[in-house]
């Protein structure tokens, strides 16, 4: 796929044909997906051999991490400082903050631990919006059906039902926490109506937004609320290295790593909520990613080792339009709004090759096919296809400045004018569709362990609908927090330790898996921090 058409040549082709004529996909969608979707490429996946999902397929990189040994031995935690909490929340993005807030307000003593700073997460990067069926022409049933259909009928229906029925009250909760939303043109803050945009695959417009940085607005309000919440202790720059168990196999807290002091700390808790987010920074199949720096599947690794069942763990969303060039912006999102406003995708021959408004998995696969078959465009060693923003601007003068503000900012940082020069784009690893299987209460298959947000699986089936990720973290963050606080009043774990590791290591050995392979990896491979080698050094 390194071969392609040189940028200058492609630019000439584009100038000659722009705006290019529509050209539908000349391959059945089924064939396109099975040949070009990264999830299905031959050799990209392997079968898990140990753990609750043994026998199921999973991307190679993730499968290596899931079937790794712990970073810890009993001796590592023998003298470690210990804290106690009713509820330990691991993860400081949207889901983690909301679960922690809810649990603390329900009376629990909460400790929130996060690998980076509070709010440094995928949540804050979400642009498009949050779906909730509030329109008069809409219903929670329609939202339900759209979500099921977008997920190719593989989602767990009970979870989707809880998601969509919880939508309107999630929006009320966010407003009560001080989040603002766009209003329909000409309406007032008191008694007006919200602005609805259309998400790909939605039967009616239902995407609520704040400008084109909805996630930032959400995270600002929730981060501030978390900082101000009594009964809630924050430990930032404290990644989780391992979950703790008691003698019944219940989750009993976690071992964290304190970067500032270069040592492990033990947190014993009655209940643990996992809200560690996704895994884009694993760069599966060498894809660039739109994800934040800490998205390295830590939560999946810890939960799986403790015996929590995963679901749809081989399913990832590749967003069609990530930046391919220039390198400093590689992988960053060019919002779907560009295509829904009418921007075309054009290959190195100046041709369109797919209906740009098809679902994300189809468009992404179609772009990858152009690249694989040599019709991509190469520039400084990067390869992609054009997103024809100049033709969009020519047909709709002023649209870039008026409606695609973030896109304009992105181009400016890349040093070019999107009204003159097309974007060079390529699919980017965007979202982990599956994850730790949960019930509607947030409980996982391991007692004492709950989960919320992108780390969970079951809601999105095999393809997530735009706007459901922000909704999910509010609805399930709240229910996990409330149930964690309630559970914490019951019994507390006894004889806490790393007892699950003995069985895990026996299983690894019996399958011939190397015990020197350790996880979680905490940071991307280019982060120059190896948790085995560098841990004693501190930061």
């Amino acid at each position: 796929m390194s071969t392609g058409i040189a940028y200058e040549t492609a630019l000439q082709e584009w100038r000659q044909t722009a705006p290019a004529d529509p050209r539908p996909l000349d391959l059945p969608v089924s064939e396109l997906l099975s040949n070009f979707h990264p999830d299905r490429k031959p050799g990209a996946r392997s079968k898990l051999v140990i753990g609750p999902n043994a026998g199921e397929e999973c991307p190679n990189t993730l499968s290596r991490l899931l079937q790794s040994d712990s970073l810890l031995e009993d001796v590592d935690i023998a003298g470690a400082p210990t804290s106690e909490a009713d509820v330990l929340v691991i993860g400081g993005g949207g889901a983690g903050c909301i679960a922690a807030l809810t649990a603390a307000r329900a009376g629990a003593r909460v400790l929130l631990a996060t690998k980076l700073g509070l709010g440094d997460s995928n949540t804050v990067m979400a642009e498009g919006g949050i779906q909730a069926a509030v329109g008069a022409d809409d219903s929670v049933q329609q939202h339900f059906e759209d979500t099921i259909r977008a997920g190719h009928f593989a989602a767990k229906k009970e979870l989707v039902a809880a998601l969509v029925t919880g939508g309107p009250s999630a929006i009320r909760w966010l407003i009560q926490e001080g989040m603002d939303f766009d209003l329909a043109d000409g309406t007032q803050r008191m008694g007006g109506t919200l602005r609805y945009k259309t998400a790909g695959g939605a039967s009616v417009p239902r995407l609520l937004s704040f400008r084109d940085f909805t996630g930032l607005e959400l995270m600002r309000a929730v981060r501030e609320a978390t900082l101000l919440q009594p009964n809630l202790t924050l430990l930032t720059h404290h990644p989780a290295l391992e979950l703790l168990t008691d003698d019944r196999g219940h989750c009993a807290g976690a071992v964290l790593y304190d970067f500032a002091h270069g040592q492990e700390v033990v947190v014993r808790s009655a209940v643990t909520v996992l809200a560690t987010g996704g895994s884009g920074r694993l760069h599966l199949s060498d894809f660039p990613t739109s994800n934040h720096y800490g998205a390295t599947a830590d939560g999946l690794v810890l939960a799986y080792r403790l015996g929590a069942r995963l679901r749809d763990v081989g399913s990832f969303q590749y967003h069609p339009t990530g930046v391919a060039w220039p390198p400093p912006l590689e992988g960053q999102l060019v919002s779907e709004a560009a295509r829904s406003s009418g921007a075309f995708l054009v290959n190195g021959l100046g041709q369109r090759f797919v209906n740009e408004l098809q679902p994300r998995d189809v468009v992404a696969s179609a772009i990858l096919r152009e690249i694989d078959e040599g019709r991509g465009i190469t520039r400084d060693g990067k390869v992609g296809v054009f997103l024809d923003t100049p033709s969009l601007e020519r047909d709709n003068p002023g649209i870039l400045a008026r409606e695609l503000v973030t896109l304009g900012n992105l181009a400016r940082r890349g040093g070019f004018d999107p009204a003159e020069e097309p974007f060079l784009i390529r699919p980017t690893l965007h979202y982990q569709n599956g994850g730790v299987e949960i019930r509607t209460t947030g409980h996982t298959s391991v007692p004492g362990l709950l989960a919320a947000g992108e780390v969970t699986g079951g809601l999105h089936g095999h393809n997530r609908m735009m706007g459901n990720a922000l909704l999910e973290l509010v609805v399930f963050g709240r229910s996990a927090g409330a149930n964690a606080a309630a559970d914490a009043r019951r019994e507390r774990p006894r004889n806490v330790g790393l007892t699950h590791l003995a069985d895990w290591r026996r299983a690894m050995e019996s399958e011939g898996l190397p015990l020197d392979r350790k996880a979680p990896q905490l940071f991307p491979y280019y982060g120059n921090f190896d948790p085995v080698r560098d841990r004693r050094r501190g930061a």
Partner: protein
Amino acid sequence: MTMVRLVIDGHAINGESGTSLLQAWVAAGLPLVGNVGCMGQGVCGACRVLVRRPNERLAQTGLACETLVEEGMQVAFINISRQRRPHSYDLHALGDSWDAIARIDEIFPEATRCRHCGGCDAACPKGIEVEKMVNLAAVGQTLAAAELFDDCVQCNLCVAACPEHIDPAHLGQLVRRMTASMTLRPSDLIMRLHELEAGEQTIDLDSPGTLPQVSDDADVETADLETADVETADLETADLETAVVETAEIENADVENAQIENEEVQ
């Protein structure tokens, strides 16, 4: 590729021109375990830096993910704790909006003591008129103040810059949160909440719309049918996956499979 020389946190490194400070830092083999979040989008505010360029008298603040390397740059990461601070309040106990100005003054008493030094404006990497927001908030013009903070990424550089300890970033959030929570009452949302409470909005788990063959328009339908062929394989896996969990679900999936098979027959 052109390389430039620069110094970040005392490490003299070579950076490829066109790359960001964060990218140059990791490319030089230095460990990146903090001062980083969104890694390029410029929205998380975690990678604050102080940058001094050659022949410039003053250092400038910025975000390392958005600042490109330049020859001779001197760069230092700035660690500011965003943890708990003295200006605390409970948004839900602020009382009614008649008392908004009084509450703002109670919580942020320093806000009326702005000395107009412009330090906050100079520190903001997003070009926000921070000082103006502080002054508007201090006289109770909350909505106008809130709007000025639309682009804030909570990097807290203005907090570090303020000699009067006003904490502008948090004052900005207070006025924004007050405004939204006290004045945003969308009628459509309120109507839907009432319908949900009255039991008028329910979910039919097995409605025809949740099955592959039903669709709302022709375009989507074609796409769905085309993918449906592929999905048979997936649903079989889904069966295995769900087997342990819920029998009800498997029955649903079986029904879906059956329907897909029907379509294939057609």
